[in-house]
């Protein structure tokens, strides 16, 4: 049997609730409903799942999905050995066996034929057939499936099928409101509230440009990076340029505008 303990979250991750999501998630977990977490990049989706795993005291198995991932990468495969073959469980199978929360991060990155293997686990059956091995696993009572996805890609190729979408309950995350985001920055990095507030203001200027040359605004994660740099003694304007502006755009006009916003905010 796989060691459950290694998947446990031992220390409380810092998470600031934006609404009732913690209670709602607990309700979903009580009834073992699959959960989907949507929202732009860096808004705290993964942190939320980690926090809930800690709060519920359940192991958490995270899989970062990518386009080269096949169904066997999730379910498991036979390995060749010198004198025969050996079956190795994939992360999804492990989670179903030990009763962990399985978190498939950025699920749309995986190919669509891969995502269908989760279907039998997400409805009343709660089973996982391993056709290569000829085994049908009934999921552990504690098992729950969580997926995250970023609807901001706006690409026809990167969307979930309706048949997948309709197996989940969903949370729609967004960047927190200004006051809340300020608190998050201050708590996470120990930066003073006034400077944190200015960082949030700069973040909002960039979010206003979404769709006008920016695909995504400045994420909370990047704001945390900037706050960390400032906390370390970096001059705020340099920190903002480095952590907030340079990563998100190569467009000279947008860069000039955001640089100006930084100068105007940190007078």
């Amino acid at each position, binding site marked *: 049997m796989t060691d459950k303990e290694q998947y446990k979250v031992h220390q409380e991750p810092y998470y600031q609730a934006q609404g009732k999501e913690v209670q709602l998630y607990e309700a979903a977990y009580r009834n073992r409903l699959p959960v989907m977490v949507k929202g732009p990049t860096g808004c705290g989706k993964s942190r939320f799942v980690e926090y809930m795993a800690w709060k519920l005291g359940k192991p958490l198995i995270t899989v970062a999905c990518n386009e080269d991932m*096949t169904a*066997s990468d999730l379910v498991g*495969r036979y*390995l*060749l050995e*010198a004198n025969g073959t050996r079956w190795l469980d994939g992360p999804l199978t492990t989670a179903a066996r030990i009763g962990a929360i399985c978190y498939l991060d950025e699920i749309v990155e995986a190919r669509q034929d891969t995502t269908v293997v989760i279907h039998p686990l997400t409805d009343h059956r709660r089973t996982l057939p391993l056709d290569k091995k000829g085994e049908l696993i009934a999921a552990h009572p504690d098992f729950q499936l969580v997926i995250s996805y970023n609807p901001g890609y706006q690409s026809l190729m990167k969307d979930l099928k309706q048949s997948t979408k309709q197996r989940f309950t969903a949370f729609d995350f967004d960047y927190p409101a200004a006051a809340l985001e300020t608190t998050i920055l201050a708590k996470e990095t120990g930066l003073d509230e006034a400077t944190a507030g200015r960082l949030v203001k700069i973040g909002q*200027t*960039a979010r*206003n*440009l979404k769709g*006008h*040359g920016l695909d995504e605004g400045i994420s909370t994660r990047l704001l945390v990076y900037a706050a960390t740099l400032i906390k370390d003694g970096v001059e705020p304007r340099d920190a903002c340029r480095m952590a907030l502006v340079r990563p998100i755009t190569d467009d000279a*006009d*947008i860069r*000039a*505008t*955001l640089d*100006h*916003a930084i*100068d*105007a*905010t*940190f*007078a």
Partner: protein
Amino acid sequence: MSEVGTEYQHPLMAAYWKQLNSGFPQVKEVFEDCMAEALAVLSREELSEYLDAASFLGRMGRGVEPILTFLEEWPSVAKVLGGSALPRVMQAIHAMHKSPNGKAITPFLQTLAAVARRQHSQDALQHYLDIALDLMARTTGSIHGHHTTFPSPGLPEFYQQAPFLLSNLSMAGLKNWVEYGIRNYGNHPERQQDYFSLQSADSRAVLQRERHGTLFADVERKLDLYLRALWQDSDHLVPYSTAFDELRKPVPYYDQLGIRVPDVFDDAGEISGLDRYRAVLAHMVGHRRWTEAQIADNWSPFQRMAVEFFEDCRIETLLCREYPGLRRIFLALHPKPAETACDPETTSCLRHRLAMLSRALLDPAHGYQDPALLDFVQRFHAALAAGASSTSEIAGLALSYVARTRRQSDQFAKVHFDDTVIDYRDDNRQMWKFIEEGDEEQAFDAERKIEPGEELKGLPPRHYPEWDYHSQTYRPDWASVYEALHPSGNAAKIDQLLQKHDALAKRLKRLLDLLKPQDKVRIRYQEEGSELDLDVAIRSLIDFKGGATPDPRINMSHRTSGRDIAVMLLLDLSESLNEKAAGSEQTILELSQEAVSLLAWAIEKLGDPFAIAGFHSNTRHDVRYLHVKGYSEHWNDEVKARLAAMQAGWSTRMGAAMRHAAHYLGARPSDKKLMLILTDGQPSDVDAQDERLLIEDARQAVKELDREGIFTYCISLDPKADEYVADIFGRQYTVVDNIQRLPEKLPELFMALTK
């Protein structure tokens, strides 16, 4: 000319008068004053040269004006540039005198002082003179290339405009502007005059392009992003020209139709032009956010002015709260009037007082002592301490300020204006509403009704630049392209043509089948796939035998790669198409029709997105672009009917048509974009005397398209095309010598290109 007696008492003055040796009574009237001024700035030698020069000007035979102007103007020129600049100026005058351009000497002298004030060195003046003399040499008319006999029509106009030009252009910009005028209107006296007197549209357009400072056109996107990002506001930004309103400088404003900003901003000290634009926009955003319109009827103009000043300061304070960094920009742009600059006994100081107050409200380190001012600064900050306050509250404060500081002298006609103009603020027209119709509202923006008689045919014109190879610059908005739907004819005609080429069509069909997407692309390293990938499988087996973990991805699968080509066929419909093809009964037009029909049929079979358009032109003002088939249309009767009605006329302005076609083709999402141009002659038009001009423009258009990822290919039917077609299209062309074979050549060519 009668000698005027030497009645000067002072012997020196008498000697000067003698040296001047002038008989004009008008000169005598001003001589003494001029000499007094000249003595103050000129050395003894320079004074002597001054008198000699004046004497020469008096004897030129061009009346009293030159000598009079020179005597009056030179001392002030010498003050700026030094008296030693005289030989350079005299050299220029001698040059004009010896040519037929003597008439230009007077305007030259009249504006010399104003020009000199814009120069900072004698070298700069020399540049100016060189440009002027170059203009003279190249526009003075000659007969049979021997004797210069006609004066330059543009030169006097140029001198008259020179001070204005130099205030807007750098020396290099001036040179470009003059060059443009000489090149384009060198042989056209009236137009040349219009150009150099800044009357014609392109004269102004070129001037605009050459201006120094930050041009609105260059920063428009930055400003748009600025509004969105920092202020969550957006509106149509409309530039107004600052170059041509001399009397009253327009001021930024906004209304329902958009935000009006100047077309250019020079840097102001350390504040860049871009930051000045940002200050203007921020100020207007402030009004849009926080200002409520007030009823103006009950207040006097002075009261309204005070309310405007207070309100402007209120919103700027709020703006700085939002973005503290704005204060630096506002303060740098805001004038700082000296407290004692205005004398209330003789002058109306209202503006001065309000400008000081405005400065003090924004700048904590203002340093003014006036008790009333300090009191109101304190009351202003108290009103804003709790929150945003409001327009009506601040208006109340403004009214009590007016009541407290009112002076009799405010009514004086002499108003103190220095350091009171705050140029980033708008005119506050949105701040007022009038209950009664007064004479202050303006109805410039009232909607214009389109007269019922004005029928809109086709689309409004689009303007494209044209490349001028002489100067290696674009002529801004030079060619106007009118796009319209091609008239329709009888679609059956095209079907008949296709039937006629039935045998050819069958042969093409076989070729097309070969071209259809069928080529497969291997995808390797698949765990599950359609075939075993032997290379990888063997490698895995070796790993396995060696005891290492083998790679299980030993299969491969296939994917078909689709064709992804968008095609635009551009047809030259110029007059020459009506000629009969060599050795044939058909005209080139008919043969083109057949060829295009076959090609369209073939491409439709292949399924590539495809558009057809024709073009011809009648001068740069009327380039016709006729839509025959669009990308979303199929090869149906409607399209065939348009193709059947194809007619030829006029000339070939190829560059403009290519640019217009490219704006459609460029918007296609395809990987590969192909523009085929079917033409029977070189680019030319009736208004382009220089043969090379339109050839070079077309070549430039090809380069532009290449940068946009559009592959251009020319099919020329002109047997003499070898002389120029390679210049335009490089190696991307075919010359079809035997035009009768065009119908089969064209589809074959297309297939070869896209194989």
